[in-house]
């Protein structure tokens, strides 16, 4: 398995502000993924972050809104910019690890935008 820590665990944010979520993994990984889970919905991939290159964003997600950093093989950040209430979600960091390249998830960051 993998130990994946996220900060903050939970936050209440004001509309129009930005918040950066941190993800720390217990060992080096090539690919890190950021997902969003809106209330009552399933998980949607935002982007894939590889160390040393620009993140790859999925359809419907753009770098200006969700800038991502990947400074090394154990750490990544996701910023949610210019937040609106529609950004209220759980944001999850995940990594690929182990036999068959299983995907493991971090503890999640629950953001509420007011």
């Amino acid at each position, binding site marked *: 398995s993998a130990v994946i820590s996220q900060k903050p665990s939970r936050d209440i944010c004001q509309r129009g502000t930005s918040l950066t979520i941190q993800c720390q993994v217990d060992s080096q990984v090539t690919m890190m993924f950021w997902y969003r889970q809106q209330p009552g919905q399933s998980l949607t991939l935002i982007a894939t972050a590889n160390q040393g290159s620009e993140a790859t964003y999925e359809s419907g997600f753009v770098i200006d809104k969700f800038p991502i950093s990947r400074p090394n093989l154990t750490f990544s950040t996701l910023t949610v910019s210019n937040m609106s209430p529609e950004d209220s979600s759980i944001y999850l960091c995940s990594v690929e690890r182990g036999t*068959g390249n299983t995907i493991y998830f971090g503890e999640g960051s629950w953001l509420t935008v007011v």
Partner: protein
Amino acid sequence: EDKVVQSPLSLVVHEGDTVTLNCSYEVTNFRSLLWYKQEKKAPTFLFMLTSSGIEKKSGRLSSILDKKELSSILNITATQTGDSAIYLCAVRAGSYQLTFGKGTKLSVIP
């Protein structure tokens, strides 16, 4: 577009019952199917099924992949209140993309 459909969306059972959760999929270049348990925020990995590993079991939980029917089931026997959670099915196609179903919310009442 890849699609994963889970049923039922919610289920209420009594402790000790056996439940079967369903997952069907339509994806291009299927690689694997994964089951997760989500209690609060983070999905916890349960099983991964592939063409070379179509049946997995761990304690009271078991899962089978039917590649012909493009589906999978997750069985939980002798359910306990601690099994109450949302169970997510996800299918991996291509290089890394995971497509998730909407989940089945299981409630186990004493």
